[in-house]
């Protein structure tokens, strides 16, 4: 790693009160090996343009205020070494707010959607507490470890504003809210678990609309791995009998049908089983095109014709499903 480099830093600039469109401004500076992205932003403000705006507070990677994106990568400005990013992006650094469409002034965004969703999942322990307790409410190490680091979330919004599902579907709760839902649902002192699981089971806003891209896991500066908690919420919905039979849950559970019969997924059956016959009808156009190209065959999905190849030693898979299955729909 070199000691210092003369670099041109690009920054997204926009003032919602005066600008019609955002623009990019460039700033030349020497970047040292220990400089953080926050140091670069301070230099822009203190040495180049006092109107440059951003949030900062603790400078210890714990308050989450300075979360921004650099070339699309979510970072905490006070934690991210600048040279590392220069190496990662071929000496090109563009500072951007976490969400360009929610920008108020430069790096400062309106996070109200994040806080509304966070609040909606009741991110606190719901419990009838004795106002005059005679002893502490204790948790074992194992019970604490079950939080799986979700307790470390600093609400910076890095995962939330990296989530492509949320970008398309504003109703979606998003990974940070799900991580919080998991954290309080597994808390042994909490009594609102079922309510939270029902919320996270709802179509459009709940976990079933997660696209499984792992952007949230990549973005989290505290290495909380929100998608791991999303997976746990999926499982918990089944374990606690909260999962209702719908397209998404049947799609998950329905994998077993093909695997029991062939070892492989039955690709045609899973669509019909998940959507029902009427729902599957909307795929007829695509199915015809796939048939024309040879991707599927006329007998695909016909119940009485075994058109799927079978794996060798299928009986092992059947046996393992029989003795290992822990959930049901």
């Amino acid at each position, binding site marked *: 790693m070199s000691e210092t480099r003369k670099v041109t830093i690009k920054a997204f600039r926009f003032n919602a009160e005066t600008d019609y469109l955002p623009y990019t401004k460039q700033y030349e500076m020497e970047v040292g090996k220990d400089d953080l992205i926050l140091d670069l932003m301070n230099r822009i403000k203190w040495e180049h343009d006092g109107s440059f705006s951003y949030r900062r507070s603790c400078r210890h990677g714990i308050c989450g205020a300075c979360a921004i994106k650099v070339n699309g990568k979510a970072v905490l400005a006070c934690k991210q070494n600048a040279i590392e990013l220069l190496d990662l992006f071929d000496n090109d650094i563009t500072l951007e707010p976490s969400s360009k469409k929610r920008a108020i002034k430069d790096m400062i965004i309106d996070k109200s959607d994040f806080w509304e969703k966070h609040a909606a999942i009741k991110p606190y322990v719901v419990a009838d507490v004795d106002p005059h307790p005679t002893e502490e409410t204790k948790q074992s190490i194992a019970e604490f470890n079950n939080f799986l680091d979700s307790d470390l979330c600093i609400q910076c919004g890095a995962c939330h504003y990296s989530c492509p599902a949320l970008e398309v579907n504003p109703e979606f709760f998003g990974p940070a809210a799900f991580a919080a839902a998991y954290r309080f649902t597994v808390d042994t002192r909490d009594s609102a678990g079922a309510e939270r699981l029902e919320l996270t089971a709802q179509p459009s806003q709940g976990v079933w609309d997660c696209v*499984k891209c792992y952007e949230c896991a*990549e973005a989290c500066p505290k290495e909380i791995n929100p998608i791991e908690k999303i997976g746990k919420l999926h499982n918990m919905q089944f374990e606690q009998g909260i999962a209702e039979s719908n397209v998404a849950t049947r799609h998950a559970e329905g994998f077993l049908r093909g695997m029991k019969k062939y070892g*492989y997924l039955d690709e045609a059956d899973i669509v019909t089983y998940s959507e029902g016959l009427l729902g599957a009808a909307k795929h007829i156009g695509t199915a015809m095109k796939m048939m024309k190209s040879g991707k599927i065959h006329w007998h695909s999905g016909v119940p009485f014709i075994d058109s799927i190849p079978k794996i060798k030693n299928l009986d092992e898979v059947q046996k393992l499903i029989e003795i290992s299955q*822990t959930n049901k729909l």
Partner: protein
Amino acid sequence: MSEQLHYALFTGCTAKQSTPELLSSTLAVADKLGIKITILEEASCCGASHLQDFDEFLAHVLNARNICYAEKLGLTMITICNTCQLNSAMTKHALDTDPELKARVNEKLAEVGLEYKGTSEIKHFLYTLIDEYGLENVKNKVEVPLSHFNIAPFYGCHNIRPSELHEEANGHENPYNPTSLDSLIDALEGNPVNYESKNKCCGFHVELQANHTSEVLAGNALLDAMDNNADMMVTPCPLCHLKMDTYQDSIGKVMGRDVELPVLHMPQMVALALGCTEKEIGLNFHVQKAKHLYTA
């Protein structure tokens, strides 16, 4: 290379069903390059990240069983689907780092006479070509340079994220700035298209329950590639291929623009450059017409 490379191939479900061209082109590429392939005929579905949502423990048991068969052969298990790669690697990581889980899984596997040991690596075919066969060696085998094609690499999520899980198997690919497919295109003398969406999500996994989200994500990537003058898109993931190839009509309606772009499997692109036969490459299996790309 002094020793012949030999791998255990985990085909996944799609290569056995809706994307037969993926299997034929993979085998053709391996044959041309002198790589020995043993197909794991015993391997089942990986759960595709959906069975995992329903029953994580069962998914671990079934994936561990698949890996057992590669272990029996003493070979690295290679995958040709990003999602198969992720789910198999996740099970391997979980079992290798959690002795209690490994014991619980092995208790079930013992009922069918198997034991997961953790001795086989799991690697996507893309990365075996780059890291183990070597790009220079691939380049030396090119018979039909792809120099007249602008090729948009579409990486797919599950080979590059979460980066921590994949870093050993994918040569420390940077999820924000992946380069493997680009360098493979370079080696085949094609012109890699640089576009913002190359490491984004195609939306395949919510096709049924969140169709609009799925269509927009796929549409963003396809249009981005088209706007950057791509003649084709290439992906190492058959699920990305299925989403991007078969739904272009409906994606076009959602996006308000005509979408027309051939989407090739990574091995198909390599097979084109290595001069494999038209039948082996199987471009006729595409919904979006792609046969014209075969020029040998």
